[in-house]
């Protein structure tokens, strides 16, 4: 018994620590309902997912001006909107970086982008935290279910950041093909190298 007690205490402590340290940091998983947000677009207007009644879903991408990987993927993000906005899945780009850490990601600097889709500033970084975004670019496909939006894919755009011509697997396009056919994405979550989000310093 006197050997078991410390062991049980340890087990309990481990169990407790897993609750204390994990939940908020983990963000969404595929199948989770995404909460709506209200963020300022570069045109000054506030944007929410609920605004676009015609949207069947969204391609939400956390991206920025400054990260070389975000830059490498910029034209591919634009191409995703060109392809999927007419099919009911427009792109919504969100810049989560703290401009105090990355001055090139300030609201003023974001004005240099002229996209056909919203480019929103996540000033409080709450949306990125809620989604569990960790890097730029980090992409989430949302699918409408009634008035809700459900996370259907999380991860990378494709398998080659350096050269779009050398891409073998287009993760997002493959997922979209299945989602548009009313199916769940076979590969619904992928990993990619990217720039860690520039979180506000405490």
């Amino acid at each position, binding site marked *: 018994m006197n050997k078991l007690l410390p062991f049980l205490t340890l087990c309990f402590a481990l169990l407790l620590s897993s609750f204390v340290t994990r939940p908020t940091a983990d963000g969404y998983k595929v199948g989770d309902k995404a909460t709506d947000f209200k963020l300022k677009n570069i045109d000054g207007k506030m944007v929410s997912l609920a605004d676009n009644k015609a949207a069947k879903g969204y391609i939400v991408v956390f991206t920025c001006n400054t990260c070389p990987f975000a830059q490498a993927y910029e034209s591919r993000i634009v191409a995703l909107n060109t392809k999927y906005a007419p099919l009911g899945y427009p792109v919504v780009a969100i810049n989560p970086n703290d401009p105090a850490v*990355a001055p090139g990601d300030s609201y003023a600097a974001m004005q240099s982008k002229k996209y056909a889709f919203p480019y929103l500033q996540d000033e409080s970084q709450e949306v990125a935290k809620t989604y569990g975004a*960790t*890097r730029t670019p980090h992409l989430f496909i949302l699918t409408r279910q009634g008035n809700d939006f459900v996370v259907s894919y999380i991860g990378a755009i494709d398998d080659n950041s350096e050269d779009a011509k050398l891409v073998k697997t287009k993760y997002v396009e493959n997922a979209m093909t299945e989602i548009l056919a009313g199916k769940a994405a076979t590969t619904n979550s992928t990993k990619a190298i990217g720039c860690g989000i520039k979180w506000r310093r405490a």
Partner: protein
Amino acid sequence: MSRLKFLLLSVFLLLAAPGFAQQVTVIRFPELQKRLSRPTDTTYVVNFWATWCAPCVKELPGFELVRATYASRKVKVLLVNLDYASQLDKKVKPFVKHRGLKSEVLLLNESDPNDWVGKVDPKWSGALPFTLIINNKTKQRAAFERELSPTELTAALRKFL
């Protein structure tokens, strides 16, 4: 004659010493995985970084400090670079030389992170910088998907020693 030998040796050493510090070995993921799974009692401090990643560049001196401080202990610092292999001569080697990095630098030449990021650590999403501290003998493991200050890094490593 022996003087000539000495001279030659000196010249050779002078040429070789800085050359060693600047070496960057290009490897594929299975080789890295093999290296990190060896049953050794050496504690590995593995930092994943890139020259284009500002917080990575900022924290590099901390890893160099750890390498120097624990040089007599069984601690090995591995700097795994994630620039593209095409940038080896243009960017990575000049960077390593300019910064005078003494830790071992490996350039991981893989195009699809989805194939390997999860094998390094299931919880790593792929954001840089990322640091792994492992000891296969004691089966200890710590992972950090964020920038570490020299103090944080030393504190994390001390738990292994």
